[in-house]
């Protein structure tokens, strides 16, 4: 047996290598720096993120197969990678005073927190570029496993543990379903490479029962990850229970990477079977739009509301895949970027408010925000209006492109569904805006969480409550938190900027669509 070393283009692989090295550095830096852990770790991880982003931008425009066809270097993958990296860069400052990382009364765990975050980013970068069933599955796990841990990392809050457990079980169910589907597709087509599968499916396997079952199961598995209804039930619970920075990251970055691989897998590998999966995905998109928007109506927790809104938004974005056209992919990538900006702005405000008021992320915590904290009220307002799709925001442009792509692909009824969904969504997004600007501030609750909640599952003897540390760690109201406010304003500003002047982002997204043009009808 002879061994032939695969050709490795280290330049193309450089973002992945940089992230891997960075994760190791963050982890080791975290355990060897007890005193200034937050500073050391944050410098390391922000450097990693910046280097990885720079390398992605450097490789922008290259199109080639990496490492024996395992990865595909093109603009679509890099776009997904950049979105994930941006999300991580914003979320790292958000996590600085997160109890899950700060651990009042205990050794801080910033190293772990940020290393897990970065390894999830690594999984996303690999996933967005995956061009092989095995790579797809392993990178999806690399994306998910750190998130399971991060969701449950606030070990002193039962909801966090519940969220981690729920996400683990539902996520594993989704992964297993996906793997089952991939096995059927491999069994039917006899290959794990996307392009070879495409050739096999194209030569008379479009109606092969094995491949069809595989497509159905794989679509279900991916739908779990991007929380498409009816596979969305975990979303509100997990979003609500997880530490808010983790929720922010999970909401945007997971969606971006999973949508990138969804597009690549379905348009490239399963492209010839488009007539079989297109109607099914169209129905899923419509169901998701309806279920997400109606579910969000009655929510009083902002994180739950954004969870349901995420379901609806995933439905909008799925329309981009249903179109199976370059126009659809462009619209999808544009919307992913816009969605990232708006959601990160909203979650940054929630992170601040959650620590200041005693109401957690309930809508009461945001009443009267317009008068008391206009610096927080504006980013939240802009984010909500953009999510609702009001003109002059990136959300509006994104919906416009999606509807245009839907009409172009003869799915006008899906365009109508997006429009109707948007109208319903106004009800709950505007409710938040109204609470911010038109209500008097709610009575400030004495933050009873000043003492630390007992560790879930821990015994009182083994888990002394260090009251001193908890008292000092409790945030003082009115703290400016520049590290959070600046990203929030940047994201909100970008939302407006790309709503008024969308052409840079449109150009950027159309490159991503262009990468798939050879495979699109």
């Amino acid at each position, binding site marked *: *047996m*002879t*061994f032939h*070393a695969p050709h490795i283009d280290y330049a193309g692989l450089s973002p992945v290598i940089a992230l*891997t090295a960075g994760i*190791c550095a963050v*982890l*080791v830096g975290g*355990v*060897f720096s007890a005193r200034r852990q937050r500073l050391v770790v944050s410098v390391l991880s922000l450097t990693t993120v910046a280097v990885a982003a720079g390398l992605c931008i450097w490789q922008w425009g290259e199109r080639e197969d990496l490492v024996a066809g395992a990865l595909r270097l093109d603009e679509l993958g890099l776009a997904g990678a950049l979105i994930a990296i941006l999300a991580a860069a914003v979320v790292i400052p958000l996590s600085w005073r997160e109890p899950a990382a700060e651990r009042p009364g205990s050794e801080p765990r910033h190293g772990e927190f940020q290393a897990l975050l970065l390894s999830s980013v690594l999984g996303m970068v690999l996933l967005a570029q995956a061009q092989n069933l095995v790579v797809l599955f392993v990178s999806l796990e690399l994306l998910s496993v750190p998130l399971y841990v991060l969701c449950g990392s606030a070990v002193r809050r039962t909801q966090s543990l519940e969220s981690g457990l729920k996400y683990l079980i539902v996520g594993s169910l989704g992964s297993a379903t996906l793997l089952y589907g991939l096995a059927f597709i491999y069994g039917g087509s006899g290959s794990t490479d996307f392009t070879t599968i495409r050739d096999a499916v194209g030569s008379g396997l479009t109606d092969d029962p094995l491949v069809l079952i595989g497509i159905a199961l794989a679509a279900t598995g991916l739908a779990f990850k991007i929380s498409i209804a009816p596979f969305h039930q975990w979303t509100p619970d997990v979003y609500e229970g997880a530490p808010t920075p983790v929720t922010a990251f999970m909401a945007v970055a997971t969606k971006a990477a999973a949508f990138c691989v969804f597009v690549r897998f379905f348009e490239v590998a399963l492209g010839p079977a488009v007539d079989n999966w297109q109607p099914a995905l169209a129905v899923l998109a419509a169901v998701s739009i309806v279920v997400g928007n109606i579910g969000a109506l009655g929510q009083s927790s902002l994180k739950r509301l954004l969870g349901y809104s995420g379901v609806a938004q995933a439905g909008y974005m799925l329309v981009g895949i249903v179109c199976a056209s370059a126009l659809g992919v462009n619209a999808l990538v544009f919307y992913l970027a816009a969605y990232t900006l708006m959601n990160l702005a909203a979650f940054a405000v929630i992170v601040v408010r959650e620590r200041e008021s005693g109401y957690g992320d309930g809508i009461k915590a945001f009443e009267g925000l317009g008068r008391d904290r206009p610096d927080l009220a504006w980013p939240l307002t802009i984010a909500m209006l953009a999510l609702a799709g009001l003109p002059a925001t990136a959300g509006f442009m994104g919906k416009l492109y999606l509807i245009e792509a839907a009409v172009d692909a003869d799915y006008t009824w899906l365009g109508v569904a997006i429009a109707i969904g948007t109208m319903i969504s106004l009800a709950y997004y505007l409710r938040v805006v109204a609470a911010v600007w038109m209500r008097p501030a709610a009575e400030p609750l004495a933050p009873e969480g000043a003492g630390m909640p007992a560790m879930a599952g821990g015994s009182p003897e083994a888990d002394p409550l260090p009251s001193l540390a908890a008292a000092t760690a409790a945030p003082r109201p009115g703290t400016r938190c520049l590290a959070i406010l600046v990203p929030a304003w940047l994201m909100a500003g970008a939302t407006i900027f790309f709503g008024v002047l969308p052409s840079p982002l449109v150009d950027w997204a159309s490159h991503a669509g262009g990468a798939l043009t050879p495979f699109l009808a």
Partner: protein
Amino acid sequence: MLHSYLPVIVFAGLGVIVGGTLAMVNGLIGPRRPSRAKDDPYECGLPSEVTRTFRFGISFYMIAMLFILFDIEVVFLYPVGVILRAAHSVFVLVEVIVFVVLLMVALIYVWRRGALDWR
């Protein structure tokens, strides 16, 4: 294909037959004088008390978890080790070193966080 596993099948078959026979013969012709000590699940030392709510400490769980991780590492390294000599390339060596270094980081982390201390 199956022929190369014939010894394994014979071995497993013999094991079942011999073991089963001995256990059966023991039950058939052995003397039977039951006592409380003999009925204990574990006959040495303190009288064992196994209840339905018996619990292991979390330390066992931690060690078992880490054992699995490094066990899987070995499963990955085994096939690579087999071809290491035949491949005869620096590339393979470097890749294996990268693999092991990543796990070394895991080991350093686990050690520094005190997960290997028995408490």
